[in-house]
């Protein structure tokens, strides 16, 4: 399939309310051509609403939607050349697999051999060559999902939208189709907005992830940026596992922030640059489980009680209880086996910690 010039998308002050419910607060967002952007957020955070506005199924209350430099806010869905993959696939039940895929092409006036060739290519692309004559209900969930993908991609859309396309699949199949979607995207990059509330999926597939909450995008960045530099405890908890300790910021001194940890004596410090919180007062300290190490010395370390040791194959997770009663985890390739109840010291590299606002 020929690689096609794809369009970027720009949201300008898009907002939408349903009665009292503000599904989307005025929202700005720019998606680069060929980018794979994932909207990640809890139920009701406005992901589907945003996608429906892009597709043209919903009109925004206000704001503009720019697709490839053109204002499409007032265009009906059929005039937008957008491919959509629905959560329940929404395949036409009265048509065969090939007819489903051919639908968008026929509407565009493609006929005869060209039609057949493009349909076959699209089916090959999702590894369903030879399934064309099947009825939709003769396919498994994963196969239906791939038909939906082929149907959306065969029309060479300027933009591909997917609303929790893997929601109905089991774990094994999810993983498989995730990689397949990723592979197709790498092969012919096409601007894609992908919706999920599975954080792992978001990290695996995306160029950038936008985290949504109550109709807002609270943070946007590459998976690495979001994981390593979350702006709030909410995001830290949303992406991966986190130890969050209540701390008090004491002040900035020579590029370093000093803080004390509740329940412990002494002060600690971390580089001041790029922290999410640096004003003196209550804050939270984020240390990822893999950043914690068992320490033999007293410096820059905390006394914790081992509560439980869980073997995860190559990794071992150790459940800890901190002095103020807070629970946390330490994860390491092979940590020395401690008995539950043992008192140990844990340490970390100061640059692996992050100070976050006290409130989510």
């Amino acid at each position: 399939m020929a690689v096609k010039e794809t369009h970027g998308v720009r949201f300008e002050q898009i907002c939408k309310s349903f009665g009292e419910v503000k599904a989307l607060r005025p929202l700005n967002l720019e998606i680069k051509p060929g980018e794979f952007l994932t909207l990640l957020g809890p139920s009701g955070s406005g992901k589907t609403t945003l996608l429906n506005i892009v597709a043209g199924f919903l009109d925004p209350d206000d704001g503009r939607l720019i697709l490839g430099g053109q204002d499409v806010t007032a265009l009906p869905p059929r005039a937008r050349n957008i491919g959509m993959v629905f959560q329940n696939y929404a395949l036409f039940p009265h048509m065969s697999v090939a007819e489903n895929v051919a639908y968008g092409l026929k509407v565009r006036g493609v006929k005869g051999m060209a039609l057949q060739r493009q349909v076959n290519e699209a089916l090959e692309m999702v590894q369903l060559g030879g399934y064309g004559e099947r009825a939709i209900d003769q396919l498994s969930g994963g196969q239906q999902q791939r038909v939906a993908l082929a149907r959306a991609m065969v029309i060479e859309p300027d933009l591909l939208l997917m609303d929790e396309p893997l929601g109905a699949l089991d774990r094994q199949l999810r993983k498989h189709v995730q990689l397949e979607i990723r592979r197709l995207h790498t092969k012919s990059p096409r601007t894609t907005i992908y919706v999920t509330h599975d954080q792992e999926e978001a990290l695996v597939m995306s160029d950038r992830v936008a985290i949504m909450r109550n109709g807002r995008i609270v943070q946007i960045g590459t998976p690495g940026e979001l994981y390593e530099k979350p702006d709030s405890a909410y995001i830290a908890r949303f992406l991966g596992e986190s130890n969050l300790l209540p701390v008090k910021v004491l002040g900035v001194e020579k590029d370093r922030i000093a803080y004390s940890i509740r329940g412990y004596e002494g002060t600690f410090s971390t580089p001041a640059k790029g922290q999410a919180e640096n004003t003196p007062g209550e804050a939270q300290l984020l240390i990822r489980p893999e950043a914690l190490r068992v320490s033999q010395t007293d410096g820059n370390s905390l006394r914790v009680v081992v509560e439980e040791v869980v073997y995860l194959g190559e990794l071992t997770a150790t459940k800890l209880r901190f002095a103020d009663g807070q629970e946390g985890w330490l994860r390491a390739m092979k940590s020395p086996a401690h008995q539950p109840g043992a008192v140990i010291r844990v340490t970390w590299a100061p640059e692996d910690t992050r100070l976050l606002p006290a409130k989510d």
Partner: protein
Amino acid sequence: MTRVETTHAWRGHDQRLGRAAMTFLLFLPALIFLAVWFVWPLGQLILLSFQGEDGAFAAYQEILTSEVFRIVFFNTLKLAVLVTIICTILAYPAAWLLTRVKGFWFSIALYCILVPFWISILVRTFSWMLLLERSGPVNNFLITLGVTDQPLKLLFNDLGVYIGMVHVLLPYAVLPIYSSMLKIDQRLLLASDSLGASGRTTFFKIFLPLTLPGVTAGATFVFLLALGFYITPALLGGPHNLTAAMLIDSFVNERLVWPLAAAASVILLVIVLVVLAVTSRFVSLGSSVVVK
């Protein structure tokens, strides 16, 4: 392990038997009622149809060879087919409207469609006679509008029969079509739209095909009921609007030839069964009437 599984299987078996027995018991009163009041008389009727004075098949022979009977049966079929077509065409947009309106207006629309069900067919037919007569409201209205100078003949002809029958049978078409429209996943229509299809294409390629089971079910009900119609054509029709049911009535009440009446009934019944058998191959009629 194996033993546990076996006992389990047996218990499942017992439960299933128990359920079957229960189901049977619940059905029993209805079954007895049907056996006494329906199956038994029907058997009598079929027997009767073979008891003509001139041999077992005389009644059938007379009906199938007589010109008059053929014409009456043909008229009945034609009437049923046309009424079915008119009802289906009128019912489709009505059903669609029903899926669009909400709350108060939905209740109003639904009652408008269902209320006729609760009024005796005789009352409704007489009401049409009042409405359609020479100096009735319909003619007055048309004259006031200037559509016509003289009263139109709306009664005792084909027109009267069609108006009356379509009115009575319309709900039977609306409900299954409405139900099939309700079952359509709205996202299919959105999908079609975003794939670039015009509203027209979406209607003809997606919406209409998906409602066809409802249309077939509705049309079948209307057709089968129309085949046996008696009161409406008898009261609103003219001398030409003789239907099979009226013919059977005249055999019984005027000519007193019961075997002939029985044979005509059996022929009508066979037509009904054939139509049912053919359509049920395409759609499950049961599932089309149930509004989910």
